[in-house]
């Protein structure tokens, strides 16, 4: 596999042969199997939220935030589903991970599962592009090896969703057997599905998986693990990022104009050596013809929500 050639094809959104995807996924599994459930990452680092298959916006993200040649990145998961280029987005990140293993940390999101990708677009996208689901299966194998979280300078905990009533310490996360499909309940599920909210204590999540947690739970987790911040993604934020609980938690969202119809802006969070936070916001790639969205490969306009 010629990695540079594959990267160039991916940046252009072009077709990648099935055998290349197979090799890439196999190599990634070998790389990821050696990573801990909670990866250690040094500053400076840029934290990125959901991508959801918006390849052109992912390219903008790299452009606006320095690029992988110069910058260290943590991606908080949800690389696939919803957008039209889930495969290319995910493979681009895998290629970067292979090329620069210390500069890219990939955390698993709740969409990196077989069950969810069958409903929300990635499975269909692969079927459309290859006529069979082999490539989807290869990617799902990689999903099972992705980390569950990351810790920056032992002070900032990164996770896709949030906290779990079954997890008081980072060591508890380290003890999870992560190499599996995301279960419907339990700590691994909660880390990928939970949301912060204005609640007194653990509450049922309207999503049907994970929990809602409030300031009390966040303060307890921060204090108990001697950390300053929980950085997570998972929820659309129209302004790109949102700090909560006196700055103890931040949601970062990196898919601008989500689903090509929400109108939101996106953000990434740069953490410098002094653990200072610096947000970079960016807009979606504009449609090229002013009417339809020329980056949508089906040549059909994305379904508008206008009832």
């Amino acid at each position: 596999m010629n990695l540079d050639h594959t990267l160039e094809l991916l940046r252009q959104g072009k077709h990648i042969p099935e055998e290349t995807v197979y090799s890439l996924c196999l190599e990634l599994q070998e790389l990821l199997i050696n990573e801990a459930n909670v990866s250690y990452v040094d500053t400076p680092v840029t934290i990125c939220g959901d991508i959801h298959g918006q390849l052109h916006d992912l390219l903008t993200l790299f452009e606006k935030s320095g690029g992988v040649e110069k910058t260290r990145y943590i991606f908080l998961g949800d690389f696939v589903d919803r957008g039209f280029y889930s495969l290319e987005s995910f493979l681009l990140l895998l290629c970067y991970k292979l090329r620069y293993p210390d500069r890219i940390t990939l955390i698993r999101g709740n969409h990196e599962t077989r069950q969810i990708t069958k409903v929300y677009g990635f499975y269909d996208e692969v079927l459309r592009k290859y006529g069979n689901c082999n490539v989807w299966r290869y990617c799902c194998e990689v999903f099972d090896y992705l980390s569950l979280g990351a810790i920056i300078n032992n002070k900032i905990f990164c996770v896709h969703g949030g906290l779990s009533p079954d997890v008081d310490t980072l060591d508890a996360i380290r003890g999870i057997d992560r190499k599996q499909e995301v279960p419907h309940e339990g700590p691994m599920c909660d880390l990928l599905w939970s949301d912060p909210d204005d609640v007194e204590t653990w509450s049922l999540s309207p999503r049907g998986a994970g929990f809602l947690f409030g300031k009390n739970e966040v303060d307890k987790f921060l204090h108990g693990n001697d950390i300053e911040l929980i950085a997570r993604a998972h929820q659309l934020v129209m302004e790109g990022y949102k700090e909560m609980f006196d700055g103890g938690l931040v949601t970062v969202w990196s898919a601008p104009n989500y689903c090509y119809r929400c109108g939101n802006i996106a953000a990434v969070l740069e953490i410098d050596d002094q653990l200072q936070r610096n947000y970079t916001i960016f807009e979606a790639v504009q449609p090229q013809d002013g009417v339809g969205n020329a980056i949508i490969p089906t040549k059909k306009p994305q379904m508008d929500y206008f009832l």
Partner: protein
Amino acid sequence: MHELFSPVRSLYDEYMARVRSRSRRLYGQIDSRVRQSVPVMNLGTYLRTVAIDVALLQFIERAGPDTPVQVVNLGSGSDLRMVQYLSVFPQIVKFLDVDFEEAVAFKGQVIDTTTQLKQIVEQYTREGRYELLSIDLCDVQHAMELLTTHTRTDVATVFITECLLCYIPQRESQLLIDSIQGAYSTGTPGGNLWVSYDPIGGSAPNDRFGKIIERKLAHVQEPRLAHSARLQLKGDVRSSVAKAIDHCNVVIRDMWQFLQEKVTDEEKKRVAALQFLDELEELKVMQTHYVILSAQW
């Protein structure tokens, strides 16, 4: 509410099959939406339908079984709600579906080619309980002449407007509301009700999804309608409709509020079990940009 829905699936299927044979283009538009089956869209459609039904049912219930009621669906399109309501509520003495001439002609032709639905519609038409009427609602004077000719102004009446007022120029929509309010008197037993479902937003500086709605409206094929729709949104339909339907008992909820406050936990669970929905934030953004308004006089 359940009895409204149990017998009608086959009627809707029959109607859609006939739409297909008459207009592949229209059928394709509807069918592609159904096939894509995006959970936020389906839930939005569900909420819109339920919100109208809740308002309508509450009105009928409050009026009581012995009070005659009329329903006037302005801009009814292909809505077949009349079949359900006329079969369940004998106190509905008239159900009037109103739309542009082309829309009315199309609906009439489609119904004409059905079997089961045609029989039902013909029966209600013979009884004088159902009528499909073409009216250009932008021509308010003529519209009022027709409305008052084809309905009684001394009977408790519900007016339904679903995504209609945003397409009518501000001056005409105000005139239409004032005229209807004036013509259908307050003294009727049961009173009168206006139920309106409309988009809102676009006026606040950081209302990004509102801007998206505005942009979509700008591409409405009829330029006059697109322009007025944009004007309506700028003025925020939430306030303009409320102001227009003045001196009434007006209740407005955005559809997110409606989901939270009016849909029971049990019903939420039932709906959640039908289709997995992960995108709660997207749903909230969308539903806070639509309102259901009930104005009683």
